């Protein structure tokens, strides 16, 4: 597994983990502000600092993850906060164009 070294100072530690299960014993990923890599898989990065273990394409299992509020800071959690998100977009891998974000008014 290859790493994004500069994105992850702890990469070498995670590198030593023999399997994804072991990753939990390792320190938190350092990622760019506002990202998550520590849910499994992460949203932007996998726990190895790469993309190899992410759900790809992300549309394929989006609701499986959003329903369980897996990345509530990146994907609207439909469990509690935004139950209607994704409504009318039955299959994200076909209808992904209709998926809209939650944009806060940041005025």
């Amino acid at each position, binding site marked *: 597994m290859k790493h994004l070294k500069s994105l992850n100072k702890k990469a070498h530690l995670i590198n030593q983990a023999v399997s994804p299960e072991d990753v939990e014993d390792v320190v938190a990923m350092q990622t760019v502000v506002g990202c998550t890599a520590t849910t499994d898989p992460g949203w*932007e990065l996998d726990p190895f600092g790469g993309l190899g273990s*992410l759900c790809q394409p992300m549309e394929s299992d989006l609701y499986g993850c959003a329903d369980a509020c897996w990345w509530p800071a990146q994907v609207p959690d439909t*469990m509690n906060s935004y139950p209607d998100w994704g409504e009318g977009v039955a299959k994200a891998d076909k209808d992904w164009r209709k998926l*809209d*974000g939650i944009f806060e*008014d940041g005025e």
Partner: protein
Amino acid sequence: MALTKQNKKRVPLVGPALALVAVLAAPAMAAQPDGETIIRNNCLACHSETGDKAAPFSRISEQRKTPEGWRMTINRMQALRGAKISPEDKRALIQYLADNQGLAPTEAEPYRYLLEQDTNRVEEGIDEGLGQMCARCHSGARFSLQRRSEDEWKRLVDFHMGQFPTIEFHSLARDRAWYDIAKNETAVELGKNFPLITPQWNSWKTAPKADLTGRWRVLGFVPGKGQFDAWMNAAKSESGYQLQLEGQYADGSKLSGSGNARVYTGYEWRAALTIDGVKMRQVMAADAKGGEMAGRMFPAAERAIGGELRAVRDQGEAEVIAVMPSLLRQGESAELTILGQHLEGDVSLGEGIEIEKVLERDDDSIRVLARATGSEGARSPSVGSASLEGGLSVYQTLARVEVVPANALTRIGGNGGEMEKVRAVYRAVGYSAGADGKAGTEDDLRLGYMPATWSIKPADEVAAHDKDEDFAGSIDAHGIFTPGDAGPNPARKMSANNVGRLTVIASVNDGDAQVRGEGSMLVSVPDFVRRVLD
């Protein structure tokens, strides 16, 4: 409805009897209600009046945060809790809360990047434990920009637990008793690190606040257009300042705009201007005397694409504010512009620098042709009695190039979908080796921004194998990286998205040679939840 969704572990928000009394006690709506009245009118259906003068409103009184932090909380009250508040009341309430329960300048200082929306960075200085418990979903700055009583940190943990019940099952959570640790250790630590009552806030709260009315000499950077200098006039208005901005880019083209600013907590400058048809935002912090402000400016519609911004108030004194470019290669002639105000008298660029010709001269800008003959090192250019320490660097060899941001994240988008692409802008900073002659050591001399040619390559063999460089996006001559289109891509393995890991390369000319610097780029999937502060 919202209340029932809360975690049962949470302390009840309000005793119904108290709330009723509070509502009845609320005075009739005035034309411009004060903050407490707005709270009474809008928040007491769920929150209560405590009867305690020092902390009159439940939940609301025992925290302090930035204007953005308050906006985010009130947004949640509206979006998830069903609170109703008019836009005018909301604006006035954010002003009131940020003014009376804000952060002192020194408290906000280490985390300004989040306020400035300058998020292409790996956070440093976030305690490792807090990183694992808290900063694994969102930035560490989000909570480091808040001050709360220990109880309020605990209630914040309860809010998370109730709102995101799976929080315990994520990796770095299911290996431990997450809720117990969060409530009994993390919240206690947060209460110590970021307490409600601090000497900094006590002294800032009572300190006289500067009036920011006047003429400001402004220097900034607009991606795609470049460096600019301008004058910005700030005239008092009802809610803050009315702004007028006129200036020029380094290539001589003009910029002009107008808008409004609000100042929160006596120093947090937030402006919305339309500059040449584009809505822009300014986020700056004013110094205690109100003589200088510094921060960032970015398009309202695309906060990732911004640039540094500095403003120095015209107080009738001569001042040299910057020399652009801020570097001069030994033995070469180059055009330099000295920017400032009330620039009268003799011009000097420092020891060993010959001014071959004054090309243009105003009282706020002097363009010269200069040649460096002296030794390598920093110089302090001056005009009359005003000088700028270390404002210009003479160098012999460009030792290294730093790409900023060193770590960036962009997001696929577009392609007919609702989510826009999130781009990134790069700049190259040059360094000479300094006295020890070795690049990459502490005494390297920062020369300043330099023009570069930009390219990308895959970050490693995996990225090369997946052809990330072909799918994930491209970089233009201005250093602006545009990620690939959203959606599954049938041309990729498993129809993967156009995500990727890239190295961004800046090539900078140094005489006949070229010096390269590299940055790391992650092209990622969309962020469907964009908060005021991520």
